[in-house]
């Protein structure tokens, strides 16, 4: 298989397979989770301002007083790399083009130099977060193969994408093909790993907010 054939495959059948597994996988997991339902709370509710599932979906994005000091890397590193990933995926010109080809929607992109900078900052933040996972006893203790694996699966598309645009290490065609392949691996892994939190965290926050709002506690 030549470089071009490889690129053609990952851009065509490979992408279709990955997107198919991603969409069906996420749908399956969400059905698997949310059709379990929950029992109605029969206790008389107490109403309080600011207490609801909806409030918690947003409020939980901010640390509780005192928590930032206890685990600054988790919060600051976490904010940076999540924001970085979102900027790269949704505001990078080639990605917007891909989305346009897939669903027909498009919007203005950020300049490629800015996306390049975002990629460097995102990778730096991810390395710091990884170092924290290795150094912090609690994180190291909790970590399983899945944690290291999902870190790598998230990191590689950023690294290969950045290297492709900077023309580093490998010819552009090869690096681009690797970049697309790594993104496809990410899409396939996401529904069946902790990366699904990108979808379920809304449900989790909502349930937590709702259950506690019943008691009049804004959480």
């Amino acid at each position, binding site marked *: 298989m030549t470089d071009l054939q490889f690129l053609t495959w990952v851009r065509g059948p490979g992408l279709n397979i990955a997107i198919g597994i991603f969409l069906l996988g996420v749908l*399956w*997991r969400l059905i*698997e*989770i*949310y*059709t*379990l*339902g*929950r*029992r109605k*709370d*029969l*206790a*008389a509710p*107490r109403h*309080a301002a600011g207490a609801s599932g909806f409030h*918690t*979906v947003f409020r*939980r*994005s901010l*640390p*509780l*007083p*005192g*928590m930032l000091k*206890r*685990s600054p890397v*988790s919060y600051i590193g*976490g904010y940076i790399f999540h924001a970085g990933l979102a900027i790269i995926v949704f505001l990078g010109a080639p990605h917007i083009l891909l989305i346009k080809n897939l669903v027909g929607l498009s919007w203005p992109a950020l300049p490629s130099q800015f996306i390049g900078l975002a990629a460097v900052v995102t990778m730096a933040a991810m390395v710091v977060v990884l170092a924290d996972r290795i150094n*912090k*006893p*609690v*994180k*190291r*203790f*909790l*970590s*399983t193969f899945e*944690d290291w694996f999902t870190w790598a699966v998230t990191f590689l598309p950023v690294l290969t994408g950045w290297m492709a645009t900077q023309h580093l290490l490998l010819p552009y065609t090869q690096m681009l093909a690797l970049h697309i392949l790594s993104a496809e691996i990410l899409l396939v892994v996401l529904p*069946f790993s*902790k990366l*699904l*939190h990108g979808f*379920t*965290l809304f*449900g*989790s*926050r*909502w*349930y*937590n*907010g709702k*259950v*506690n709002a019943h*008691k*009049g*506690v*804004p*959480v």
Partner: protein
Amino acid sequence: MSASLEKGIHALREVIDAPIASYFSSCVHCGLCAEACLFYTETGDPKYTPIHKLEPLRRVYEQEYTLLGRLKKRVGLSKAVTDAELDEWQELVYDSCTLCGRCSLVCPVGNDLVYMVRKLREGMAVSGHVPDGIRNATKRTVETGGPMGLKWPAVAHVLKHAEEVTGLKIPVDQAGADYLVLLSSMEIVNYPEYIEAIARIFHKAGISYTLASDAYEATNAGIQIGNSDLAKVIVSRIVDAAEKLKVKKVLSPECGHAYMAIRWEGPNLVGRPFGFEVVHVLELLDELRQKGVLKMKDKLKDPLILHDPCQIVRRGGVLQAPEPLIRQVAENYIPTADKQKLNWCCGGGGGASAIHTEAAEALRAKAFKIKKRQIEEAGVDTMVTFCANCRITIEEGFDHYEMNTKLLGLTELLAEHLEPVDANSASALP
């Protein structure tokens, strides 16, 4: 697999619902829940990380309710939950978790961890992996009426004494009263002043109340152990008595778990909404304060801090009443940085204070360092709280660290400083 383990795993399968599935699917192993748990912050041992305490429940979820987990189980790639493992987890689920719920407040993906620990306890209880201390307390509650094995004659004796001290009649089994007053054994035995305080305050407010000779105990060890069947038996006593006496409201004592049991878990245990309202004593007191009935003759001058019991405040939703009440009676109340729903647990809730093994007691003493720090940072010699179980745990902590801090109950403190009672009214003793 032993029969009891099979029952335990079956119980775990039964408690798993959409929230639990969502929570486990969202966890990214960030470990922030550890930073909210006093058993981790005071020991530095990662095994006390709240999400780790849930590992057996997580595996049952994965193996029974996810496609990939079921596949892995089929081809023998998953690790089954064993008796030995649950035995090891007993310390994590009971000794080092007070169901304080602080972890549920910090999880960035929104996991309600305490909700899950409570459910895991169902499986632990059924499979027999429960500390003897809690098991015995539950047995005594079912057999005698209270976790301390107290029977009605002993309670009646305490009531009689309270009548003598206050000069007020304490009504028993009086149908049609506004309130059915519940107590906790801890109060009856260790803090009978609470009963005197209640008699004075009700008299002053002119509200009718009664105690029930067949339902005086409000605590529910069935909930602490995690056995819903027993919890239902215990809570039904109160429901039956309240309905028989046709009271409008049931008054929960200060005790945190009692409030949780009757106010929030009660209707779900009996399977229907209550026909009466459940009110925490502080809610009633704050209502009386707002009406101007709760007037003080003087105020306490000592600088003091407040310990907000988890089950009443963070988990129970009585958020607004405590502070105005303490300000009503104390001139120098100093709010702590982590107050109200952010407060740190005393270390003895969720049944933990009933576990008397050497290891559990040593762990509780370590966890208490956080309360000690709060007191020292505020530079006070007095702490006020409103939960009998917190009081016992805190007193033990004071003893352990040889502290000279004074601990006061809020309701009693209010009663002590209440304007004098008019002894010529209807409820005065003849």
